[in-house]
């Protein structure tokens, strides 16, 4: 049969039902303040890492909640845990602990090493 070079492109939709939210559940049990985020981006604006790399803590929060773990796993390696984000958060989210717990969850659940 003639090959026309067609291939299937993976849909870029967030497949909410297929996604794994065990990581965010693990974090929320231990750091419920993550639920208070209003996505204002103040943490990302204050972030030194975010100024030089594609790291955005605000984005991490929403990706975790949607279960987009593949993106989170890569991105959180960049965080230096300096905690400037905590100082500026208007909702009092313990942002640094979210990163810390995310790493812990990836290691515990998936044996992933940072």
């Amino acid at each position, binding site marked *: 049969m003639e090959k026309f070079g067609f291939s299937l492109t993976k849909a870029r939709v967030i497949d909410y039902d297929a996604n794994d939210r065990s990581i965010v559940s693990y974090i929320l049990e231990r750091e419920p303040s993550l639920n208070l985020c209003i996505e204002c*981006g103040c943490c990302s*604006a204050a972030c030194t890492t975010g100024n030089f790399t594609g790291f955005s803590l*605000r984005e991490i929060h929403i990706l975790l909640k949607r279960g987009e773990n593949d993106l989170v796993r890569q991105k959180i390696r960049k965080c230096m845990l300096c905690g400037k984000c905590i100082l500026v958060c208007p909702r009092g989210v313990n942002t640094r602990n979210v990163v810390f717990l995310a790493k812990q969850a990836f290691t515990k659940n998936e044996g992933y090493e940072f």
Partner: protein
Amino acid sequence: MNPHVIVIGGGTAGMEAAGRLARAGMSVTLIEKGKDLGGHLRDWYHLFPDRRSSDEVLEYLKGQISHQNIRLLTGQQVTGFIHKGNEFTVSTGNGDTINGDALLLATGFDLFKSERKEEYGYGIYENVITSADLEAMFRKKEVKLVSGKKPERIGFLHCVGSRDEKVGNIYCSKLCCVTAVKQAIEVKKIFPASKVFCFYMDMRMGGALYEELYKEAQEKYSVGFIRGKVSEVAVNINNRLVAKVEDTLVGRPLKMELDMLVLMAGMEMSEDAVRLAKETNLQMGENRFFKPADHHFGTNMGNVNGVFYAGACTAPLNITETISHARSAVTEIVNYLNTGRK
């Protein structure tokens, strides 16, 4: 003898209520700590959403209180009150006491002191001003930078002192969004060549004609809107302000030079009212405004029988809502005095 109602606070709520009470046959004493009546309204230029001159509303309120049943006491600070049975005795700073049958607190609000958000540089950088400072400039018809030059790029920073755990205010002051849009339009009318940006977390346009004003700002004045809370403001080598924010809709940090930054200061319970509440055991809510007896049916009453509330001492309210709230307070007071004070 007519029942006597003591109204504390001579701003919009106090003036409207005093006028209505007098017309309902009450004898009224209106006590104001400042030397002039009118409260914050005297500091504003145009009101949203229709940009009516605030002086027009002030004139209306002055008309309301020109009544023979109203006695004015200006320049007098209320220091406390006691009540025995159904009678209230209010004491003032200069040692006077006034007796009345009911008390209406119309003590209003204080603007958030923007110096408290040090990272925004109010009181540090000369061209960082507050929304109230800008109104004062509008009134004087002198909007300019400290250098005297025209601002070419102006930023409005929403939620200064509102929705912010770090200053202890989790509530939304709800008027600042529409005020920023109104002020952005005013600035564009004065400087058509300037570029104006609003930095917002959410645009809360929940009022009659607010959304229309927002659309007008986009359509006629090309006001830009950037979704993100500014983390800090600095000054660069060219002596221009630089705001740092995440453009959350793009998902990247953004920095922008500005000539002038306007901080949209939120509303807080007035300090004097907090003191009065503590001394007289009037309950305050979590937001420190007077706690209403019921959020649906009792916003003019609190925890002391015979003490009523009107206006922005109960929550952030706009002028329209304040006037309505003052009128409903009058209904409650008349009802209280006519039905055996229960």
